[in-house]
């Protein structure tokens, strides 16, 4: 589970979070630890380990207790009070999500007192909830709405505001905040502070005046928000949403002069089915291609192609750094950090600006694709790039910010016009009346629909690292990677552990392939790396990224790494802030499984074996990876933002 590492108690140096410490009672003596406690819930007996919450014990009995502020990924809050239950012998009702079972007890989950209290608490929340379900993007996928139905809310018992009391905050490219719909459950606060350790959202004021606000109530677009959208995925209501560009995209599609191209990232295809009732972990790649065509997109491309290209560029960049350090004895910044997660990039720019030199100068696959479409593709297809509209289907809300970064215009135009999330595309597909799961499958469009499994696994934490290693190992050693890693699976970098670390001893030195010869200054072979130990690491979720960065600052083991993959979102892009809601460790695991299963079916699984990659370096980026042209189109620079608001 990705967030397990964060679930430690607050140390003295932690940001003040929601007022929640461990939810589990500390055993009074050794004997109690590991003891099994008998509980009776609604007449059913069960034994649970000491410290299990009432909620979890009920789950084991398949008894549903409603929750609202509780979220599997987050610290326990116990603030909404809809999960209250009656514990025999106790004067007050107890919050099932927060109450640890430490002695035998009898519990009633639906007694008259319980039902009345839940209903009242819902009635109270609805008092100031200003929003209409039929004009809300969470219609039919809203926890407040479904609870209201479950508890038979048919009137506003304690009144209801007729007018909104907050202005909608649309200042951010990524996240829209409509606090009129907020029910103060603080999931977003806990997400931002505890899960992501960014901390731009907080509870302010007391009593009925309590609000969820940004620092000094600044617009979200002006604070240190990294746009990860993790708060959106955990909000139970429509109070938080991504900045939806679908109206503009429809307008472009409907404009006959525009050539609208969509590139699709790997993660949405493993998740978008959830919006159509499919179980998590159902891949709908080829059905989705058909759906996007029927929506009216002129071309459907695979971002995995530029993921492969990213690997070529990023691996080359790493080899250049290594050569400079070891052969030319120059001062070079190490470790090299991946740069494909715009949430991570902004996190670093804000909190570790002194390390921008470590960031790979490679653009993310989304942005590489953007500039390739408006240059190489435009040229090949004979279309004026000013008439091309590029849309990027992404699992991510930060991609919306990224495509709006002013430096991302190397093609001479805005490289990517719109970042579209999985949720938003699902909406567009529904609007067209398509039944996604049952559409006939179809392929990506040529010429840049070709991609390898290496590009596909970018969606999972560790995927970029695995893809890079598959290529780098083969280039450096001259040995087929599958001879080094069985089935090409590099297991140590996979999985949901918050931080992963791996050492690879370089067993042999191969010749420098002609394509890299220029970038490496005519070097003949990789003997300078022979016998060396390559150290790499992977971190997902910015809380874990912070741990690694602090270790690097302190000169710990991660400072000796050569290459580190960072993803802003827990679980990697599969758990991105634009993915279908809800999210949970199980859902993310299912999506991951789907991606790794799909990649096994692809004929090429190493980026440098992608024939289109070969072609583009022959035809277009003629001076090779990290060459002049690729530097212009595929690389970028960063801003030392610091904590000052940008």
């Amino acid at each position: 589970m990705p967030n397990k590492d964060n679930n430690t108690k607050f140390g003295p140096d932690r940001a003040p979070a929601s007022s929640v410490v461990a939810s589990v009672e500390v055993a009074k003596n050794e004997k109690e630890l590991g003891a099994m406690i008998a509980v009776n819930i609604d007449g059913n007996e069960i034994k649970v380990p000491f410290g299990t919450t009432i909620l979890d014990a009920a789950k084991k009995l398949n008894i549903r207790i409603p929750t609202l502020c509780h979220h599997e990924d987050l610290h326990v809050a116990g603030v909404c009070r809809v999960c209250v239950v009656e514990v025999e012998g106790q004067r007050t009702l107890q919050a099932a999500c927060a109450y640890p079972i430490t002695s035998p007890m009898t519990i009633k989950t639906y007694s008259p007192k319980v039902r009345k209290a839940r209903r009242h608490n819902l009635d109270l929340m609805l008092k100031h909830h200003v929003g209409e379900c039929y004009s809300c993007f969470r219609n039919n996928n809203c926890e407040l709405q479904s609870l209201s139905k479950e508890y038979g809310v048919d009137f506003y018992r304690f009144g209801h505001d007729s007018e909104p009391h907050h202005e909608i905050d649309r200042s951010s490219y990524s996240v829209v905040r409509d606090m009129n719909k907020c029910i103060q459950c603080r999931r977003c606060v806990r997400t931002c502070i505890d899960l992501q350790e960014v901390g731009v959202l907080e509870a302010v004021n007391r009593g009925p005046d309590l609000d969820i606000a940004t620092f000094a109530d600044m617009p979200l677009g002006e604070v240190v928000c990294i746009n990860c959208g993790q708060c959106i995925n955990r909000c139970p209501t429509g109070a938080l949403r991504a900045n939806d560009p679908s109206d503009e995209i429809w307008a472009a599609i409907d404009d006959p002069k525009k050539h609208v191209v969509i590139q699709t990232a790997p993660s949405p295809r493993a998740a978008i089915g959830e919006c159509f009732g499919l179980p998590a972990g159902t891949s709908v790649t080829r059905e989705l291609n058909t759906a996007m065509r029927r929506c009216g997109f002129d071309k459907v491309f695979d971002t995995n192609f530029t993921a492969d290209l990213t690997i070529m560029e990023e691996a080359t960049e790493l080899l250049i750094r290594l050569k400079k350090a070891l052969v030319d004895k120059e001062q070079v910044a190490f470790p090299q950090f991946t740069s494909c997660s715009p949430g991570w990039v902004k996190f670093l720019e804000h909190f570790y600006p002194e390390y921008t030199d470590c960031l790979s100068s490679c653009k993310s696959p989304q942005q590489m694709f953007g500039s390739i479409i408006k240059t190489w593709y435009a040229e090949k297809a004979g279309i004026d790039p000013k008439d091309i509209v590029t849309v990027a289907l992404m699992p991510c809300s930060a991609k919306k910010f990224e495509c709006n970064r002013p430096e991302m215009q190397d093609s001479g135009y805005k490289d990517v016009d719109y970042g579209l999330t999985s949720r938003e595309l699902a909406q567009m597909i529904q609007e067209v009346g398509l039944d996604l799961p049952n559409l006939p499958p179809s392929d990506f469009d040529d010429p840049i629909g070709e991609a390898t499994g290496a590009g596909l696994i970018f969606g999972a934490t560790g995927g970029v690292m695995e893809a890079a290693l598959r290529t780098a190992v083969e280039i450096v050693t001259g040995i087929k990677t599958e001879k080094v890693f069985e089935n090409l699976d590099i297991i140590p970098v996979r999985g949901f552990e918050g931080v992963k670390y791996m050492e690879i001893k370089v067993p042999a030195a191969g010749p420098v392939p002609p394509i890299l010869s220029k970038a490496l200054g005519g070097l003949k072979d990789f003997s300078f790396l022979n016998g060396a130990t390559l150290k790499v690491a992977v971190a997902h979720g910015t809380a874990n990224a912070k741990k690694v960065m602090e270790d690097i600052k302190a000169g710990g083991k991660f400072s000796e790494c050569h290459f580190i993959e960072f993803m802003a979102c827990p679980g990697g892009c599969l758990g991105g802030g634009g993915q279908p809601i809800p999210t949970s460790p199980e859902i993310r695991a299912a999506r991951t499984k789907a991606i790794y299963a799909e990649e096994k079916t692809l004929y090429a699984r190493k980026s440098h074996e992608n024939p289109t990659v070969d072609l583009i370096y022959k035809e277009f980026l003629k001076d090779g990876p990290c060459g002049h042209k690729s530097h212009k189109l595929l690389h970028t620079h960063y801003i030392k933002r610091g904590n000052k608001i940008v």
Partner: protein
Amino acid sequence: MSKADKKLVIFSDIDVEKALKNALQKTRPDIIGEVRDSGLKGRGGAGFPTAVKWNLAAAAQGERKFVICNADEGEPGTFKDRVLLTDYAEQLVAGMVLAAYAVGAKDGIIYLRAEYTYLKKDLEATIEKMRGKKMLGKKILGKEGFDFDVHIHMGSGAYICGEETALIESLEGHRGEPRNRPPFPVTVGYLGCPSSVNNVETFITALHIVEKGAKWFKTFGTEKSTGTKLFSISGDCEKPGVYELPMGITIKKLLETVGGEDAKAVQVGGASGTCVPRKDFERVIAYEDVATGGSIIVFGPHRDMLEVAINFMEFFCEESCGQCTPCRLGTETLLEGLDMLDEGRCSLKYLRELCALGETMQLSSKCGLGQSAPNAFLSIIENFKSEIFDTRCSCR
């Protein structure tokens, strides 16, 4: 102020140094045993048996343990801790030393109400003096291996920070908001360490008990509510002030003592307590009947009880930390209801709905504030409904 009118327990004479010396001769279980036998219950309002709390803290696993004095005294109409902090500071600190010895703590903290900042200097002087007399510091009064010291932490000016877990959050530098309980502070408290949080009066009473014996203490009070208690008495009476009275005193007797015989109602336990009407003045002040942390507010015959209810509810709206739904929005809804009553716009049906909401708040709020916020509302509506409707009938 007639604080030392009678010298029963708390105001009785004691030689602090001698008392501590004697206590340190005893074993830890003996001290906790004496306190248990005395039946002492926490004087901060919740009435939790002090010996049980100390025992849990003593048994809890932890490298470090804390003894914390709750001197946040924020309940409207309570000022008895101020008297103790002003004139009996040495006894308080000695009581903390005693508790520390009993539970095995090395660090003590006095969480002092922000409004009492003016007392800080004197308190610090007392602490310094006691360090000089070896009643604080290393090897206290020569007791090998017993080190303990106390420092003062200023409160943040919020009533909710008197709730022990919110107090701990505040000590840790967070927003003062109550935690989920369990775990209780005795196992997971300040900085995650076992902590015993006690009221000022509790520490002082315990010191007297250990010195003079549980038996003596039990000569005062009732079987279930032993000993004496300090009362902060205010409102419509001739002699407001801090009184030490035995537990189990009837409200009638108490009113006679303070010159408030003509009262129409008495609010026992501050804003979070209950409003007792004249017809119930035979009821006794004790844990088994009307409990209190010490605040008694007397309402004379001319008082408008709806106004009283509104004042209390405004207090809770201000002071609710806003964390949990029933309290954050329940207080507001009840206050709106009171305003509707005031304007003659509240139907009986809606009033019943509001009373039911009050019960929900009592049952489902996260902490004692929300759980007790509707008490005054409910008791005033119950006892003064006809007065309220008579004076505010919409057909008036």
